[in-house]
């Protein structure tokens, strides 16, 4: 005990000298408390508390981000005052603060944009539970981003899964039950693999804190012991988190879960929930195993191949889809493929592009799902393209937002999606063995993206000649929807035009990440 205390006294990363350094911990605890209180309130009060919590969370994470940028280094915050190998701790750097800030913003905007549909789709006596689940989902996401302990990460992965399934199920319909059952089943398989991976890793290293595990793993690799279990563990983690983040061969649950749920749920699920697991995977790569160990194992090649398959086959499935929300959901599969391809390239630039894609996709997909919900209002809730003819003309705000999102996903310059593809291409050129395949996949996937987004836009903006009566008249003055989409559009342009600033942030963040 004594020697560890001296280590900590000598490590300046443990020094807490600013009140801002408490903010990540405060935001996690605050969200937990608000979640508990949401259960006791009525629907209106729960909504207010949820938004209050998100606003405070946003302010706190923004302050943390500014502090981290000023200091330019990470710091470690002890949860419970037990020193390193025993206690639990959170670790905050530029990348974590950046992700937490943008995730909070996206969460707030998605809820704001889909609020009308939440009141429409969720039974009145269950609406407070919806906000309860959203608050807990938010807690688990930021805790996943900040934590430095592998088992805590597992617990929050499980909370994330449970709440994500619950927000799918809370839409009152028969189909969501089936979608939830499939989602839950696949998620449980993924978390089972993840948990057994943690158990074996604990077995051979004897630690649960990520930094300590890394020491143990590097030691094992240097002495050449336990090479087979180590590779097994890396595979278990990659497949477990791959299932949960809908990597291509394990994506079968995604279109149903994202397509059937209410628009705010779909927005949060595809924008944030999938990303939480990927951030955990990046953390595992950098902080638990070390980049060299992962690079020497073959798992990056597997992720690379799966990523490329996701990019192409996800898009082909989207082309065949006649259902607007399911098409956007399949597009998510393809976009997740980009992230995994970036990770699979196995160099620093690929990882930067992957992190950038996490941000861009988080700011684009929720907008697409929310606008899809608005289009469905013009067609009596139908999601089929044949009923949605001319929907964008009936709701012009949604039309503009959908067009921006679609252009970003296709990868037209000035939009976020283009920057990601550009950076992925540069990263691919730096890895000669994978360059040709990666570039080909990028080209094919871009063409395929255009093949399904452009016709969708054409259908939505076509003049509707039929004299079908609209029963549910779209609420054009839905202020929350307009504001949220406005901010989403602005964020998309910021990510597209000022991308060099964000890339610098991510590079700085990754430097202090390991």
């Amino acid at each position, binding site marked *: 005990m004594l020697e560890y205390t001296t280590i900590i006294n000598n490590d300046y990363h443990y020094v807490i000298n600013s009140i801002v350094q408490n903010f990540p911990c405060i935001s996690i605890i605050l969200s937990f408390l608000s979640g508990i209180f949401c259960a006791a309130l009525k629907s209106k009060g729960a909504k207010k508390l949820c938004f209050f919590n998100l606003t405070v969370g946003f302010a706190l994470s923004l302050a943390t981000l500014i502090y981290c940028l000023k200091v330019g280094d990470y710091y470690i915050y002890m949860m419970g005052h037990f020193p390193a190998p025993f206690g639990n701790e959170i670790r905050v750097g530029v990348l974590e603060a950046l992700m937490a800030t943008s995730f909070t913003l996206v969460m707030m905007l998605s809820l704001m944009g889909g609020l009308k549909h939440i009141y429409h789709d969720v039974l009145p006596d269950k609406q407070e539970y919806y906000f309860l689940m959203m608050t807990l989902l938010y807690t688990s996401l930021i805790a996943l981003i900040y934590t430095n302990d592998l088992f805590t990460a597992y617990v929050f992965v499980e909370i994330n899964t449970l709440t994500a399934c619950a927000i799918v199920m809370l839409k009152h319909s028969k189909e969501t039950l089936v979608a939830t059952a499939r989602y839950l089943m696949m998620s449980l*398989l993924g978390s089972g693999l993840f948990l057994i991976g943690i158990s074996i890793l604990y077995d051979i290293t004897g630690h649960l804190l990520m930094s300590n595990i890394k020491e143990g793993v590097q030691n094992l690799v240097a002495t050449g012991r336990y090479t087979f279990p180590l590779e097994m563990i890396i595979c278990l983690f990659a497949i477990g988190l791959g299932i949960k983040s809908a990597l291509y061969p394990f994506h079968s649950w995604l279109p149903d879960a994202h397509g059937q749920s209410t628009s705010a749920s779909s927005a949060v699920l595809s924008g944030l929930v999938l990303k939480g697991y990927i951030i955990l995977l990046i953390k595992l790569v950098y902080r638990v195993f070390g980049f060299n160990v992962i690079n020497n194992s073959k798992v990056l090649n597997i992720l690379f191949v799966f990523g490329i398959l996701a990019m192409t086959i996800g898009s082909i499935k989207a082309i065949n889809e006649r259902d607007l929300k399911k098409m956007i959901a399949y597009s998510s599969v393809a976009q997740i493929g980009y992230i995994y391809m970036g990770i699979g390239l196995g160099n620093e630039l690929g990882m930067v592009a992957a992190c950038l894609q996490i941000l861009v996709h988080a700011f684009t997909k929720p907008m697409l799902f929310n606008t899809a919900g608005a289009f469905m209002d013009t067609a009596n809730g139908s999601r089929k393209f044949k009923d949605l003819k001319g929907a964008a003309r009936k709701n012009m705000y949604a039309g503009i937002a959908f067009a921006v999102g679609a252009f970003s996903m296709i990868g037209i310059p000035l939009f976020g999606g283009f920057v990601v593809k550009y950076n992925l291409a540069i990263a691919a050129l730096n890895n000669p063995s994978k360059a040709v395949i990666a570039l080909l996949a990028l080209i094919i996937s871009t063409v395929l993206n255009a093949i399904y987004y452009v016709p969708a836009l054409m259908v939505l903006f076509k003049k509707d000649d039929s004299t079908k009566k609209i029963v549910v008249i779209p609420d054009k003055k839905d202020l929350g929807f307009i504001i949220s989409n406005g901010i989403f559009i602005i964020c998309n342009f910021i990510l597209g035009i000022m991308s060099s600033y964000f890339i610098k942030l991510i590079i700085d963040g990754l430097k202090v990440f390991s």
Partner: protein
Amino acid sequence: MVSRLFTNYYETVSIIIFGIGFVTLLLNRNIIKKIIGFNFMDTAIYLFLASKGYITGRIAPILLEKLGDTNLAGYQAGTAVPNVQNYINPVPSGLVLTGIVVSVSFTAFFLALAVRLYREYKTLDMHEIISIMNREENKE
């Protein structure tokens, strides 16, 4: 290689049970059997963790004022045992406890879902439920 499997028989058994649970959860058509498979899978992990934390001949890490008549080597009855060397590793037990909480809540959630699915579709067969759902979707 094979002899190692017998030396570490706890791990072997737990991985086999994990595999049984995993396949049941993935492939079985009945939702209740799926839930049972999930519980098999998690229990196997607890067995693995518990066997990893156990050290032969040591006792649970509870600070005893009086040892009673347990016959630990080197310790007489009636003396306090503050020494770390007498205890098993308590961390895996803590992990198992957390894991049990997680798996119980998931089981409850899954069972509630099964009840609602049965109420809507009058069957617990996942394939049948999906085919009923597709039929209803095509009818519209």
